[in-house]
């Protein structure tokens, strides 16, 4: 039995299934992320765990107990809302004290509990401030302290960092990881930001159109996407679709329109004549001015159509003679270097069979 079991949960709004037969389990102490584009059902699922929305079908069990019939105030889970939802007429201290008062924690115990929670989020000294006197990052820390002060079974976080700027977001991501380790409470984290999900989570459920497309560890999600959607949504990815022309010794050859035959290693048994897709990360593509001296498994020629300087790396979009585009990425290891090639340069691209990942369909 896991800490949280979601069994065949469905939520419909009219004809539209926001959450469509989702089954997953969250273990105690886990940092679990629901990742997906807006409208994929991740927030609806979170609201059903919190109790603000009820499933049309299926069950949600916490510690083996069905949560149906328990209103949000009775559930031992706490939510950190996207826009913090701090009570504007209460100080930081008042906000953090609120759930203790609701839980009828004796007044004598409260100051120590509040201090401990504020220490967890590094906000000691801000007790008497009002929310409008705090920065966005500080507000979010108060919201987290307020949610943690009663030691809930589980913390639900609904895009808690979405409203913060990039630099602060990264800082708070590291704090969240450390905090979660420290308090040991299971976090269920909702985000549409794939880098955030990869950085924070023990496991990620990638959701699309109300369904879980893949549930796995971050590195597995990134390295071995099970569907085209996952490959495309997580990071940059070249997707080559085509007819499987041959399979031998664990290597599949696909006839990709506009590029030609592309070979990829796979454990899966693939029938010749079926449709398949190869997901190839841009950083796995070797790009050079001269033809490779060894004989690589995949080798194509093209001209640089666009390039995108990102600081540490530059992304090159290379056009093949048939008009297809392949993205390749090169690190600008030497400072001051912005690119190795110019737009219009003829380049040679190659990659081994095990660089790509085969997806059926």
């Amino acid at each position, binding site marked *: 039995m896991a800490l949280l079991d979601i069994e065949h949960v469905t939520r419909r709004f009219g004809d539209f299934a926001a959450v469509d037969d989702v089954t997953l389990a969250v273990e105690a102490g886990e940092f679990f992320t629901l990742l997906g584009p807006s409208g994929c059902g991740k927030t609806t699922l979170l609201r059903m765990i*919190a109790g*603000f929305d009820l499933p049309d079908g299926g069950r949600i069990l916490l510690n083996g107990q069905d949560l149906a019939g328990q*209103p*949000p*105030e009775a559930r031992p889970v*706490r*939510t950190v*809302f996207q*826009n913090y*939802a*701090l*009570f*504007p*007429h209460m100080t930081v201290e008042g906000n953090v004290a*609120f*759930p203790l008062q*609701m*839980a009828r924690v004796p007044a004598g115990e409260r100051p120590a509990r509040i201090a401990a929670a504020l220490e967890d989020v590094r906000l000691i000294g801000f007790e008497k401030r*009002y*929310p*409008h006197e705090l920065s966005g990052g500080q507000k979010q820390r108060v919201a987290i302290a*307020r*949610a943690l002060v*009663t030691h809930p079974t589980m913390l639900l976080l609904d895009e808690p960092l979405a409203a913060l700027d990039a630099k602060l977001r990264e800082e708070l991501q590291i704090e969240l990881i450390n905090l979660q380790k420290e308090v040991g409470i299971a976090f269920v984290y909702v985000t549409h930001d794939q880098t955030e999900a990869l950085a924070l989570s023990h496991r990620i459920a990638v959701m699309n159109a109300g369904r879980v497309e893949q549930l796995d560890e971050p590195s597995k999600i990134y390295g071995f996407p099970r569907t085209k959607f996952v490959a495309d949504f997580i990071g940059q990815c070249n997707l080559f679709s085509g007819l499987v022309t041959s399979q031998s010794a664990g290597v599949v050859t696909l006839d990709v329109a506009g590029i030609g035959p592309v070979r990829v290693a796979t454990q899966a048994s693939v029938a010749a004549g079926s449709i398949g897709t190869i997901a190839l990360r841009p950083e796995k593509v070797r790009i050079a001015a001269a033809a490779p001296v060894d004989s690589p498994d995949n080798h194509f020629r093209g001209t640089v159509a666009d390039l995108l300087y990102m600081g540490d790396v530059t992304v090159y979009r290379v056009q093949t003679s048939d008009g297809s585009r392949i993205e390749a990425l090169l690190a600008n290891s030497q400072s001051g270097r912005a690119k190795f090639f110019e737009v219009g340069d003829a380049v040679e691209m190659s990659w081994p069979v095990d660089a790509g990942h085969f997806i059926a369909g």
Partner: protein
Amino acid sequence: MAKWIVSGPPLLYLLVFFAIPALIMVVASFRSPGEFGGLAPLVDEAGKLDINLDSYARFFTETVYLQVFFKSAWYAALTTLICLALAYPLATLIAKSPRKYRDLLLLLVILPFWSNFLIRVYAWMIILGPNAALARVINGALAFVGIEPVPLLFSAFAVLVCLVYVHLPFMVLPLYANLEKHDQALLDAAQDLGANGWQRFWRITFPLSLPGVYAGAALVFIPALGIFAIPDILGGPNDTLIGNLIKQQFLETRDWPFGSVLSIVLTVAALALAGIAAWVGRRGAGSIARA
């Protein structure tokens, strides 16, 4: 320069029609009443300046006037409380109804303003009259349990009912304006943190609505304090309020200095209350207004 052109006319208007008359009233309160009403000459036959505190002394020594004053404050306070109790659920209902119905509901609240104030007060004479359905039902029920019939009209009851009726929209509108802006996420957060319905109301909704409550209370209490038409028309002999007293002094007894004293006391009391309300409101709601 442009600033003065724009704000000049209203300032002049206030000066001529508010500040100067108020000043005249202050001066009148220190003078003696004339033999046949109005004011006695400022300088008497002996050439002595006739300035005194007689009217003030009369107000503070003859307890009947202070009694009337406190009774008025009591009626106004009761009106404010009843209006608040009635307006809060109403304003909540409007604020929570679908956006397309809100304007219609607000229109219904202010609809009575479209007919004349006195006509609405006289209408209550008919509604509360001895032959009206209301009185018959109540007195019928009382007779059933063997109690003498009670007149509804010309009573404190009639005055209060009408005071509440007339002032209710002044409480609903500021409350609605406040409640409509409340963020549902705060209530969700409170519920998530363990608060039940009552706790959510008393800990979140009500404190956040206090600016609206204060505004509504001021808009109801201050006019209710000085009203004279309603007790005149619907009240009994014991329902004389400070407003009636002032009217009497100027129109019937024709004791202008004493009327002026009553007016000044009323104005000062209203200003003091408004000042206290504003101060309490700022202290209690400062964080809300700025958030």
